[in-house]
């Protein structure tokens, strides 16, 4: 069995935390992510969304089942070609914005001129040009998240995983960052998987939204959005947008209720 058809694929993946509590966190679940697709994943809190991302990124090994990326099994390490953006600020506070963005390229041993060219390009694309020499502490949360996205972008990943990247930002900043994410997706042609708890964010950004059940998380529905490729945050005013969000909520509501029950128990 290989992941030939899909860019990334999970088959029968579970994740169980051993120990006295023995938490069955995830699955068993199957997932095919098509090359170049923008897939959003929503689910009730605690359903294992982040665990799913960890398995796909190679940050956590599945307890059973298989994870594939570009015809190779993901086992224990992050495969080349995968970039991850976390919810928390992951910029290195001791480096300038430019050095943060250049970090991965330097470790990869590229030559100076090429690093400068790529860093400048990524900074410009993310609107960070004039902050190149600033330190993260001097920037707002949204700007720091841009630094982290730029640091991922320069490495030209073919599969970008984002774990609630705008969760800590205010609503307006989130909408604008969503636009930037769409621009980035169009420009790089990368496959994108976005974990989010915000239904509107998923409905606005993705080609397809996967809805997960309460823990142990499985996929209960995949909802295609039908947006054109050159969409932006203005789709929120389209009449279909409300119907789409309502459809996602109708799938999610019973699961969220169940998750609340789990939390109370």
């Amino acid at each position: 069995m290989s992941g030939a058809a899909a860019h990334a694929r999970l088959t029968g993946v579970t994740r169980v935390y051993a120990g006295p509590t023995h938490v069955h966190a995830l699955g068993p679940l199957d997932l095919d992510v098509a090359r170049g697709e923008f897939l959003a994943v929503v689910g009730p809190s605690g359903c294992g969304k982040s665990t799913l991302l960890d398995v796909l990124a190679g940050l956590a090994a599945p307890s059973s089942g298989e994870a594939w990326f570009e015809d190779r099994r993901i086992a224990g390490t992050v495969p080349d070609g995968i970039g991850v953006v976390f919810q928390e600020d992951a910029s290195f506070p001791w480096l300038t914005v430019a050095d943060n963005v250049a970090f991965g390229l330097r470790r990869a041993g590229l030559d100076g001129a090429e690093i400068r060219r790529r860093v400048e390009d990524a900074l410009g694309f993310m609107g960070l040009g004039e902050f190149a020499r600033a330190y993260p502490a001097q920037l707002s949360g949204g700007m720091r998240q841009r630094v982290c996205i730029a640091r991922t972008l320069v490495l030209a990943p073919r599969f970008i995983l984002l774990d609630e990247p705008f969760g800590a930002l205010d609503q307006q900043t989130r909408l604008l960052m969503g636009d930037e994410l769409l621009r980035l997706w169009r420009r790089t042609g990368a496959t994108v998987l976005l974990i989010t708890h915000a239904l509107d964010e998923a409905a606005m950004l993705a080609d397809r939204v996967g809805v997960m059940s309460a823990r142990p998380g499985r996929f209960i529905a995949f909802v295609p959005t039908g947006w054109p490729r050159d969409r932006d945050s203005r789709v929120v005013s389209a009449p279909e947008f409300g119907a789409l969000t309502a459809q996602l909520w109708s799938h999610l509501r019973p699961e969220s209720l169940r998750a609340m029950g789990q939390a109370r128990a």
Partner: protein
Amino acid sequence: MSEPARQARDALAILAVLTVAWQGAYEYAGAVAVTPPLGTVAFAAHLLGSARFWEHAAATGLALADAFAIAAVLGVLGGLALGLWRYAADVTEPVLAALYAVPKITLYPVILLLFGLGLPAKVAFGVIHGVIPVTLLTLSAVRGIRPVLLRTARVLRLTPRETMRHVLAPAVLAEIVTGLRLCFSLTLLGVLIGEMFASQRGLGFLIINGINNHDVRMTTAVVLLVVVAAVLANALLLATDRTLHRG
């Protein structure tokens, strides 16, 4: 105004306030307690030209260098070890914090009995002043590393060595330098106190000897020189500290 210019302005302002306070103390208490700023500076300059002063300064410098080196190495290594070994840290941290609250001067007789008069006692006294803060700050630095930075290191496919060098080390370095700065001034304090009470050499001895001989000029001038040296050393460490803490 540029950053260095602002710092120079602040330093001058502090200097002016201190000089006024000093002159005020002289006006209030008279020459039996302190000598006035101008005369003291002149005598301090004279002291800096005498071989006897430098012998004492060298004694203090040696004790301070030994004590600081020992406290810094013990503290940083201890803090790193405790930071990586969670259980030991949970047990040790409250003990260290409690020990730090002990007025260390009360231990001085014990130190003297253990090490005798002279250099070892001064060094030991300096070390017990300086070692705990740097241990605690190093410990909290290691513990305080945000997990997301280590996850980022994995995502960027760093080897364990690269993670140590490019993520762990810089993440804790700034805190450790803050710890070393505290360690330096506390170690100096310990060494000077040691010299004041049971020593025939060093700047602490010169100060206490000046008091015993009613040589107020000597006492005030040595205090001035110690203060200037300590402030300069602190400024140097603080500048490093600021560079590392950035922003």
